[in-house]
Structure formats: structure tokens, C-alpha cells
């Protein structure tokens, strides 16, 4: 059982006046720097005349010795959208970063728009040579795309490195369901591994059992190693009606000794919605990281991060 102490919301996009960061601060992902913690997130300018959004990657810096004190924010876009017809023409959301020598590599889900379903997604790679301030693509296509057993909606990447091997945890769409407003995808957590971060081998199986329903949606698998085993915090929700109370995202938990066989036990996650406030309806997209002897979790709150993300500190994991 993990026990988290909530430290409150640390970033609300309504507190800054940046036109491409008007709404949402989704899927926080931390990169520890010398004097600060840089937290990447996905944000959106105002919707277009058809009510449709694009999404960009941004970051906000917090003081390393005081994670509640914001000291910097990305004022310019750090990664442009993809070219016409490409997998990431209409959005980059979410992003996950990792140090690779002198570079910072960012894996992100790119979004495109389709006719019969609203969108599709695949995972791209962009690289920074200025300590994560700006990123550039190394190609116009994705590094992790569709396959015979993962037909669409490849998204929600989290990049990690264990024992010299790079791992991507991500989600893969299984099917589209016709909802009341529009089709909604069902997606499950999957894994791929790589020796170079560019050529990936898919594990090819769902990692996490579903508990809500067969069509449970799972997202944002965030894995770390502690006390002899691997831990995964992730998000899960109902596929349809997820904007209704009780059907939206919650944070789940699973553990594994070998990264392949996972035992789900959401009761151990130790974090749930608050009685009121910014994270009282849904919490999701956890990102767990160690810093100077403590373990922290960033996560997004109500309305899938429309009003920002917060921070919690691990108090106990007995």
C-alpha cells in the first residue's frame, strides 16, 4: 500500500497569459535538472472555428529545492506540429522525456484527424540538444506505429531505461465503439523494447487486466523500480460516458518482477480524488519520480487536466 500526501495543484494554465497555452495542462512528465525540475505537459490554444483543438508540448520549471515554486515557463513552442498528412499534424500529446547522453529524447503521441473516426495516433521521437528547451524531429514519421495486432491509436508513451534496455510503455487501440456523440476507442497498456530508442520490438500483449469492463480504457503507464520490483501507476476509465461522475479516470496500480507479467492491485495505489477542489472528479496521468531522497507523483486533475496538474509526495509504501 502506497500512501501519498497531496501537496496541491502546482500549475494552472489559467494563471499564465500564453496564447498557445490557453487551456489544459495535461500529462505532466518530470525531467530533473541541476537546479530545477522541468515538467513537460500538453496544452492547447483556443479551439478553431469548428470547435477542434490542436495540442502542443510545453514545460514549466520548479525549483529543485522547492517544488511548489515556479521559476520558468516555455514561452515559445518547443516542438512544432507535424507536416501535412503526417501522423502528428494536429497534436503532440502527451510527451515523455529521457536523457540520452548529452541529449534529451522526447517520445510523444502524434495526432491526426480522420473521416469515420475523430482521430488516430502514433508515437514520434524528437530530440533536444539544449537540455530540453527545444526539440526537433529526426524524421517526419513515427518510431512506433500500427501493426497487425495493434491496428490504431498508438499513444500515451512513457519512456524508461532499465539495465541498458529502453522501454516504451504505451497504449494500443483495440476497437472503436460508436458512442452517442462520436466513436470512442478502447485502448490497453502495452510495451515495446529497444537497444537504440529508434528501432522498437513490440511485446505484443496487453499487460494489465481490465477491471471496470472488458472495454475499460487504460492510459499513461508509468513504471519505476523500487525495493526489488517494478511498479506501474496508470489511469483507467470507462470507454463511454467518461465525462459522467464515476466513469472518468482513476489511478490504478500494478507490480511486476520481470516487466512482462503484471499483477494489478488498484487498492495499493493509495491516491484517489479529493472531496472537493481541482482534483475532486478525476485524477489521471501519474508520473512518479525520485528526487533528493523523496518520491513524488505529478498527476492531472478534473476534466483531464483542463485546470492543471498537482503534486503528491510518497509518505509510505509498506
Amino acid at each position, binding site marked *: 500500500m502506497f500512501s501519498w500526501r497531496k501537496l496541491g495543484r502546482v500549475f494552472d494554465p489559467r494563471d499564465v497569459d500564453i496564447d498557445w497555452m490557453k487551456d489544459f495542462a495535461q500529462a505532466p512528465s518530470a525531467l530533473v535538472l541541476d537546479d530545477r525540475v522541468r515538467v513537460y505537459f500538453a496544452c492547447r490554444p483556443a479551439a478553431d472555428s469548428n470547435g477542434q483543438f490542436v495540442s502542443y508540448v510545453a514545460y514549466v520549471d520548479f525549483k529543485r529545492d522547492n517544488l511548489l515554486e515556479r521559476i520558468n515557463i516555455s514561452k515559445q513552442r518547443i516542438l512544432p506540429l507535424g507536416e501535412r498528412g503526417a501522423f502528428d499534424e494536429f497534436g503532440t500529446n502527451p510527451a515523455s522525456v529521457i536523457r540520452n547522453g548529452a541529449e534529451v529524447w522526447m517520445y510523444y503521441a502524434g495526432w491526426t484527424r*480522420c473521416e469515420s473516426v475523430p482521430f488516430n495516433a502514433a508515437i514520434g521521437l524528437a530530440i533536444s540538444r539544449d537540455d530540453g528547451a527545444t526539440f526537433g524531429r529526426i524524421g*517526419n514519421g513515427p518510431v512506433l506505429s500500427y501493426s497487425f495486432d495493434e*491496428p490504431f491509436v498508438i499513444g500515451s508513451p512513457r519512456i524508461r531505461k532499465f539495465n541498458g534496455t529502453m522501454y516504451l510503455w504505451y497504449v494500443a487501440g483495440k476497437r472503436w465503439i460508436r458512442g452517442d456523440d462520436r466513436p470512442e476507442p478502447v485502448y490497453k497498456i502495452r510495451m515495446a523494447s529497444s537497444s537504440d530508442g529508434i528501432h522498437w520490438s513490440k511485446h505484443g500483449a496487453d499487460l494489465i487486466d481490465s477491471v471496470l469492463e472488458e472495454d475499460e480504457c487504460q492510459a499513461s503507464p508509468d513504471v519505476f523500480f523500487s525495493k526489488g520490483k517494478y511498479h506501474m501507476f496508470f489511469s483507467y476509465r470507462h470507454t463511454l460516458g467518461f465525462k459522467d461522475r464515476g466513469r472518468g479516470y482513476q489511478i490504478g496500480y500494478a507490480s511486476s518482477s520481470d516487466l512482462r507479467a503484471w499483477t494489478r492491485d488498484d487498492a495499493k495505489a493509495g491516491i484517489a480524488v479529493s472531496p472537493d477542489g481541482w482534483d475532486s472528479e478525476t485524477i489521471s496521468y501519474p508520473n512518479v519520480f525520485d528526487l533528493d531522497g523523496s518520491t513524488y507523483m505529478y498527476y492531472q486533475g478534473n476534466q483531464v487536466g483542463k485546470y492543471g496538474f498537482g503534486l503528491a509526495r510518497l509518505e509510505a509504501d509498506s
Partner: protein
Amino acid sequence: MGSGWPAWKPTRNGQMFMKWKKLGKIFDPTDHALPNGCVEFAQSPQALVCTDFIRVYFATRQRDAIGKYVSHIAFVDFDRRLSRILGVSKHAAIEVGGLGAFDEHGIFPMSPVRDGDRVLAYTTGWNRKVSVPVDSSIGLAISTDDGRSFQKFGTGPVVTTSLHEPFLIADAFVALRGGTYHMWYIYGTAWAGDPPERVYKIGHATSADGVAWEKEGRQLIADRLGSSECQALPTVIHFDGCHHMFFCYRRQFGFRTDREGAYRIGYAFSDDFANWTRDDARAGIDVSPDGWDSDMQCYPSTFECDGNIYLLYNGNEFGRRGFGAAMLER
């Protein structure tokens, strides 16, 4: 090779050409009842030689509820001289994909290849998009009844977008050689213009099992019309000690209305499967002065049957009124 040097063998001196005898249009879709209520189009004919007949798969078109085309794969069986039609399939050979799938809005074309007792079909699946009309990927379907029906290998594609091939993966042709599966296919390099038109080039990939493919990652065939030339539908055949590739090529713009910009059949040859020398003049086939293939020739496919080498292809309007054949003069 001495005196046995065949007339069509590519040589460096530029004197020798292949020569094809045109057999004319051999199939008109409007003469037959086609699956799914399809009326026009018999595109990208590709042959599977069977014991007593030649089965030719082609893509035909249906209008959907919003008036857009959906391509379906059907087949027609000919005698082994391509002189007589024995029958036309009553059902689509492969179902199009479900909601959101890569092949939801059509399959065109399909390329059959025998692999032991099975027939593998590499399909190009189409899905419609918003900022550009479509995207595509290559799927696999498998037949265990000699090509009469195919079951999909998964709901997703086996070859799709990758880091340096961002869209429009299509037109697979697969051959087995020395235990390795070779695929020639096309990949998109750009969308440009308003409305957007695509550019695509011919690439090559290999596989040990026909499912997991490794792309070579380079443009295989040199451009003749510049970097915006579109190259499509490679087909490879080996005879007389040489690998021959036919394909079609066109300009990026004006290819529907301008005869000069329309598809023509191109040609390249290779001694080693790796390096290809393009020389369209050696293709030995060109548009006719008039008739069904006078403005355009596209979607070539070669095969051998009873010692003869055939070329199937489409003519004007991308095969709206059917396909024809030619036989190599030897």
C-alpha cells in the same frame, strides 16, 4: 551468353529492347455482375496461376452512403491462355476493415503470392482523413482454398508508416527468394498543392516470415520526372538471368486530365535484387495511338504461364473500363 543472348536482355549499348504483343483489353467490368454492386473499375489486375486456369484479382469500386468510392477485391478466372473468361467471383475476396481500421474505406490493390499450400495476399488498405484525402498501409490476408477466400492476419497492417516514411504505404508486390520474402512497395514523400496531391516512390523490404518486415529505407528507382514524380505498383519477374521490374509513373499534378502527365509504364533491371537500373525505353510497351490504352497505361503486373510471360495492365481512366494484357515476344 554468346549467341543465346535474348532480344530483350538489357544491355549497356542501348540497342536491345523487349517487345510486347498487345492482346487488347481482356476484361470489362461493365460486362459482368460484380460483388457488392460494383459496376465500374477493374484496377490493378494481378494473376495467380492455378492448375486449370489463371485467376486475376482486381479492385472494383462501390459508392458508399456519402457518395465516395470504396474499393473491393474481386477476381475473374481465365483459361491458361487468357483467351476465355471462365467465371467471375460472386463475393469480395477480402472484406474491408471495420470502424477506424486502416482498410475501412477500401482495398486496392491486392497482390497474391504462393507460399507452400497457402496463398498470401498483400493488400493496400485505405482510410480517409481530413487534411488530406486518404492514408494507406499494407495488410496481409491468407487463403487456404487456393485463393478463393482470404482471412485477414490481424486487424492492423503489416507494413505501415515509419520514421522516414510518414504516410501512404501501398502497392506491395512480394516474391520469395532463397527463403527470404522480398517486398517492393511504395511510400509517400510529400503532400502538396490545393487540393493536396501526393508524391510516392518505390521502396524495398525483406522478411523471414512474411509478417515482420524490415524496410531497406531508400528510394529504389531513380526519378525520371524529377523529385515530384510519382512511382507506383512495382512488379518484379525473373527470366533469362535478369530481374525485371515494371512499374508506372506520372507527374504529381495534371495526371488525370493531361495525357502527357498521365501514367506510363516504366522499367528497371537488376542482376542482384539490390541495385536497379532504370531504363523506361526498354519496357517495350507504350500507349496506343487510339483505343482503350491511348491516354494512359498503369498498374502493370507480370507473370509466367506455360512458358509465356504476360503483362496485365490498366489503360485510360485508371482502369474504369477494365484491363488488358500483353505477351512478351520471345
